């Protein structure tokens, strides 16, 4: 899982000009910060989702008292399912233009790309969908990186004047450097603004990082805002399980990511609703299955569990023993349906049947049976 962090600190450490503000967790703190800044301020919700402005999560305040009132309103607000725990207080600025600037991984080209749009401040994905011609892109050389002339070319394409292009290119090169050095998968400034006096600076930013590279970035690990992440997903990550919580009532435990997705789809096709995506990894050991039971049963919505293991090189009887052992350690009260295939699958199914667990050979049959068991329970 990538960790998403709204991080003005990262930009500041690369000396990208930022409209500097401070974070408040209470209305009183918001007031104190506004007093210190001594100007009109913007109070912005700090949550990992887009569309904050539209949801009322960003408010202007002319005085410290207004800042306090705005923070009072925004803190605790729900934006796209995320509760606001923090607000950012920044000086209000005179905005002439808003630009989108991002460094992304271009998967099709297998290169890093600098992407900009004259339509800043709005969701770039909407721009990409509706008016793709407004987006300017250049690809960074895999060995040499992004050249200054490429950044200038993008700046001129956005219609900036020569003086602004100089500032823009400087920011773009620093953002590229930040992206590469932190092993980011996304680094975006949205909006990048041009003020009334022609200064170019970052107003808001977002970065996502590559989990595979976190081992060489202890500093980024420390910046993760765990309060903003789903608690069970954090527990899963700690035990090496890929887990994503969904809204249904059938818990899924599967070996392999592709098969786990196909299993969710099969549950849906049989008229059920999956409660989660879960990949226990290739081997499906007793420890991992026990961890998976703990994760899945933590969700009170779960009314039945479907375990889908394609044995392959791992033997079916070993997986079945593992499931029984895991059930001895974790209390599971909902019906369980197991699909077990591969080497020694028949022996494995017999071991499970002895323990009173429904075990079948095909994924379609397992999906049907688990959906039926929920229907009976209801």
């Amino acid at each position, binding site marked *: *899982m*990538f960790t998403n962090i709204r991080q003005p600190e990262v930009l500041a450490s690369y000396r990208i000009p930022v409209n500097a503000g401070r974070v408040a967790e209470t209305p009183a703190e918001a007031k104190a910060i506004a007093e210190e800044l001594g100007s009109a301020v913007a109070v912005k919700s700090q949550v990992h989702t887009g569309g904050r402005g539209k949801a009322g999560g960003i408010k202007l305040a002319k005085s410290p008292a207004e800042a306090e009132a705005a923070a009072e309103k925004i803190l605790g607000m729900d934006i796209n399912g995320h509760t606001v725990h923090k607000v950012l207080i920044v000086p209000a600025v005179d905005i002439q233009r808003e630009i989108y600037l991002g460094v992304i*991984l271009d*998967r*099709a080209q*297998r*290169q*890093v790309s600098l992407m900009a749009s004259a339509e800043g401040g709005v*969701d*770039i*994905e909407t721009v*990409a*969908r509706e008016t793709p011609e407004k987006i300017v892109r250049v690809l960074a050389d*895999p*060995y040499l990186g992004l050249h200054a002339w490429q950044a200038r070319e993008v700046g001129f394409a956005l219609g900036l004047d020569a003086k602004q292009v100089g500032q823009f290119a400087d920011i773009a090169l620093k953002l590229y450097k930040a992206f*590469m050095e932190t*092993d980011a*998968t996304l680094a975006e400034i949205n909006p990048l603004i041009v003020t009334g006096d022609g200064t170019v600076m970052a107003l808001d930013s977002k970065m996502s990082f*590559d*989990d*595979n*590279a976190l*081992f*060489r970035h202890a500093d980024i690990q420390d910046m993760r805002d765990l309060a903003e992440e789903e608690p069970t997903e954090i527990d899963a990550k700690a035990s090496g399980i*890929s887990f*994503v919580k*969904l809204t249904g009532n059938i818990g899924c435990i*599967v*070996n*392999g*990511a*592709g*098969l*786990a*997705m*196909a299993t*969710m*789809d*099969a*549950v*849906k*096709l049989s008229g059920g609703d*999956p409660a989660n*995506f879960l*990949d226990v990894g*290739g081997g499906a050991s007793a420890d991992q299955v026990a961890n998976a039971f703990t994760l899945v049963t933590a969700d009170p919505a779960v009314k039945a569990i479907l375990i889908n293991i*394609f*044995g*392959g*090189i791992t033997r079916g009887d070993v997986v079945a023993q593992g499931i029984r052992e895991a059930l001895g350690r974790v209390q599971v009260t909902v019906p369980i349906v197991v699909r077990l*295939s*591969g*080497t020694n699958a028949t022996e494995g199914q017999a071991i499970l049947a002895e323990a009173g667990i429904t075990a079948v050979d*095909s*994924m*379609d049959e397992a999906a049907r049976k688990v959906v039926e068991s929920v229907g009976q329970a209801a």
Partner: protein
Amino acid sequence: MSILVNSESRILVQGITGKEGSFHTSQMVEYGTPVVGGVTPGGAGKSVAGAPVFDTVAAAVEAVQPNVSIIFVPARFAPDAIYEAADNNIPFIICITEGIPILDMVPVYRHVKDKGLRLLGPNCPGIITPGEAKVGIMPGFIHERGPIGLVSRSGTLTYEVVDALTRAGLGQSTAIGIGGDPIIGTSFIDALELFQADPATEAIVMIGEIGGTDEEDAAAYIAEHVTKPVVGFIAGRTAPPGKRMGHAGAIISGGSGTADGKIAALNAAGVNVALRPSDVPGLIRDARSA
């Protein structure tokens, strides 16, 4: 015939003395795969499942002339292993390793490409030509020799479909797992091109999943260049946007990379997409008799 590997291949295993490397070398040799040697720095003189171990790829090249290398080296050291294989001009490099930092793969991909070599993976199960060579971690016994070429981004889901094909009496010419990472060496298009040119392949199964635009690009390629029947399966119709589904590359972002979008693109290119993995053999039969 088949694609990329067969009984004449000369296979080298990088990371052969590690836990994964030694286990899967034994499995490959047991299947009858022509493994000619392995590499572990400091391992020279040892042997694994009868294959001699060398300190460097260069020493292995001199002694046993491999033309395929399969890499089981841990993620932090895997890019270096790929460079070592590439700099010794091994024409086909397979990287099984999962968890390589994405940005490390950007120059690796370019280097391999610039040298005119082929990379499969990373984060993939490898490739198998049934009855000839199993160069990967897939269970060999579910495969059967036959006319179906199979290409997939996934591991166990591929086994699921292979198993369904074999039970239905449809064997495989070659099954190739291209991997679940955002940056991979061999794309769907590369595999489709090889299967189209392979006389032993009569129909193709393509197994995709959410994230990226590889399936859409493949659909456009099929419409233009592939005359053999193609049947698809796309995992992740029920996946929510913005969440990574296990594989680093399996994420819907900003409305792009959805299963529905991929299915629509494939349908438009004349590819029938199965609702369930178990529907694949039936669709293959329909496509071949059409």
